[in-house]
C-alpha cells in the first residue's frame, strides 16, 4: 500500500518535528536553570520548583482550573455526544442547518469575539434576572462547555460514522426501543470516543486564557490567567518550572489515553476478523 518515502519528505519530517519540539525541550531544560535570568545558564538546580511550591496563589489557580476543567469536560462530553448523535443518526430535522453551523462555528471563531459576547451576555442576564450574581467559576465553566462541546461533537461524529449502525439496526429490528438501543449498544460502542472527547475538553479548558479573561470576575484567576499576567513582563524561571509540570502532566495523560485507544482499536479489528470467520 504505502510507497517509499522520498529523501525530501524524510528531511521535511525531521525539520518539522525539530521545529515543533525543540522550543518545548529548551523550555523544560531552562526550568532547571539556577540563574534568575532565564536565558543565562547558571548550572542545574531545582530551585524554581521550590519557589513554585511555596506560592499559594499558584495553588489556588491550579485548583480553580482543575475544578473548571473536570466539570466542563463532563458536561461537554454529555452535550457533545448528544449533538454528535443528532447530527449523524437522526437524518433531517428542523433546524439542522443552524444546529450544524453552531457546532462548527466555535471551532474557528476568534476567541476575543466569543469571550466578549459571553461577557455581555452574562451581564445582560444579571440585569434581567439577577443571575449570575458574580463572575468566576460558573461563568467560566459555562463558557468552556459552550466551545468544548463542539470539539467533542467532532470526535463523536467521526466515531459514529466510523462504526456504522448495523448493530443498532439489528437491535431495533429485535424490538429494542430507541432509548434502549442508545444505552445498550451505541454508548458502549462509543466508549473510546467518549474518553478522547472528555480528555480533549479537559485540556482545552485547562489551556484557555482569552475567553476566561473576559468572563471571569475579580479574584478568580485560572492558571492561564495567572501565567499570562506574569509572562507579559518577560521571562520568569518559576513559570518555566510551572510550564514543565503542566506539559508533562498533559503529555502523560494523553499518552495513557492513546495507549488505551490503540488497544481498543486493535480489539475492534480482532472482533471484526472473528465475526467474518466461518462458523466451525
Amino acid at each position: 500500500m504505502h510507497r517509499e518515502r522520498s529523501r525530501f519528505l524524510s528531511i521535511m519530517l525531521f525539520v518539522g518535528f525539530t521545529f515543533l519540539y525543540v522550543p518545548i525541550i529548551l523550555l523544560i531544560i531552562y526550568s532547571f536553570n539556577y540563574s534568575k535570568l532565564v536565558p543565562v545558564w547558571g548550572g542545574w538546580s531545582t530551585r524554581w520548583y521550590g519557589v513554585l511550591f511555596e506560592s499559594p496563589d499558584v495553588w489556588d489557580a491550579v485548583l480553580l482550573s482543575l475544578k473548571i476543567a473536570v466539570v466542563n469536560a463532563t458536561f461537554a462530553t454529555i452535550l457533545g455526544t448528544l449533538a454528535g448523535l443528532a447530527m449523524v443518526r437522526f437524518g433531517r430535522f428542523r433546524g439542522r442547518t443552524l444546529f450544524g453551523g453552531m457546532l462548527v462555528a466555535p471551532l474557528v471563531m476568534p476567541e476575543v469575539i466569543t469571550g466578549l459576547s459571553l461577557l455581555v451576555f452574562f451581564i445582560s442576564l444579571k440585569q434581567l434576572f439577577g443571575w449570575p450574581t458574580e463572575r468566576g467559576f460558573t461563568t467560566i465553566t459555562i463558557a468552556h462547555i459552550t466551545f468544548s462541546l463542539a470539539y467533542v461533537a467532532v470526535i463523536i461524529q467521526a466515531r459514529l460514522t466510523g462504526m456504522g449502525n448495523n448493530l443498532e439496526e439489528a437491535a431495533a429490528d429485535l424490538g429494542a426501543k430507541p432509548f434502549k438501543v442508545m444505552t445498550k449498544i451505541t454508548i458502549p460502542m462509543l466508549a473510546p470516543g467518549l474518553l478522547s472527547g472528555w480528555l480533549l475538553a479537559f485540556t482545552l479548558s485547562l489551556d484557555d486564557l482569552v475567553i476566561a479573561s473576559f468572563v471571569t470576575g475579580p479574584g478568580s484567576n485560572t492558571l492561564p490567567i495567572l501565567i499570562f499576567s506574569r509572562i507579559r513582563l518577560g521571562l520568569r524561571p518559576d513559570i518555566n518550572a510551572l510550564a514543565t509540570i503542566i506539559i508533562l502532566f498533559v503529555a502523560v495523560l494523553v499518552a495513557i489515553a492513546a495507549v488505551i485507544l490503540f488497544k481498543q482499536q486493535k480489539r475492534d479489528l480482532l472482533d471484526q476478523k472473528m465475526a467474518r470467520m466461518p462458523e466451525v
Partner: protein
Amino acid sequence: MTDIGVFKIIPLRIRLAWTRFAGSIQSSWKTLVIWTPFFWLLIFFLAPFFIVAKISLAELVIASPPFSNMVQWVDGSVVTIRLVFDNFIYIFEDPLYARTYVNSLKIASISTVFCLLVGYPIAYGIIRSGPVAKPLLLFAIILPFWTSFLLRVYAWMGLLADQGTINSLLISLGLIETPIQMLYTEFAVYVGIVYTYLPFMILPLYANMEKLDSTLNEAAADLGSGPINTFFKITLPLTAPGIIAGSLLVFIPATGEYVIPDLLGGGNVQMIGRLLYNEFARNVDWPVASAVAIVLLLLLVLPMAVYQHYQAKSSEDT
C-alpha cells in the same frame, strides 16, 4: 431476579412515577437528544452575538455596565428605540482601525501560506511512512495540540529574546556581535502563529491524504509522468479539500489572535484581537469593542461559511 426484589421495596406510587418518567424519556428520546445541545448553543452561543450587536449600537455611558440602554422610556409611556451608529462611524473614520484590520488579515494570510508550505510535506511524509512509524508520528503531531497553547508561545519568548537562545547561539558562533531584535517584532508574530497553528493545518491534510488512491499515482508513473508532474496534476488537486479546510482552520482564528501579538509582538504589532481586548479592558469602551467585534465577524463570515460547507461535505463523503 434480584432487580425485581429490590424493586418491590419501593412504594407503588414512586414505581409508577418512575415508569411514567422512563416512558416519557422513551417516547421523547429523539427530541431530547436533539434539543438539549441545541438549546444550550442557542442560549450560550447564538444569543450572545445578538447582545453584542445590540451594544455596538449603544452609547458609551459612565456607569456599570458602561453602555446606554437601547430601549428608552420617553414621557413615561412611549417606548423608543435608539440606535446609535456612532461606534461604526468612529471605526470607519479612524485610520487606526482600518490599518489594524488590514494588518491582521495580512499577517493571518501570510502565516497560513507558511503553515501550508511547512505542513503539507509533513502530512505527506507521515502518509508515506511505514505502519509502525505512522501512528507514532501522528501522535507526535497531535501532542503539542493538546499541550498548552500559551506555554508554547512562552517557549518562543525564550528563544527570540535579546539574550535568548538563538541570539546567544549566533553570538557564540561569531556570526553576529550584538543581538538581533527578534522578540517584539512582526517576525516573532509570524513564527508564533505558524508554530502554534501548524497541527491545525497538518491534521485536516492528513485526513484528506489518507483517502487518496495511490494506484492513480502508479498509473501516472506507468504512463510516463515524472514525480513532479504527477504531484501537480494528481496529488495536489485531489488534496484541495484538505488544503482549504486546513487553511481556513488557521486563517480564521489567526485573524482574531490576541495572545501571540501581545506576547511576541509587544506594542509593535497591531492586530485587531489585541485592539479589541484593549478597547474592552483598558479603555472600558464596550460599545466600540462590540462594534470592532461585529466588523471582524462580518469579515470572517464568508470564510466561516466556506469552512462549514467543506466540513458538511467531508462528513457526507465518509
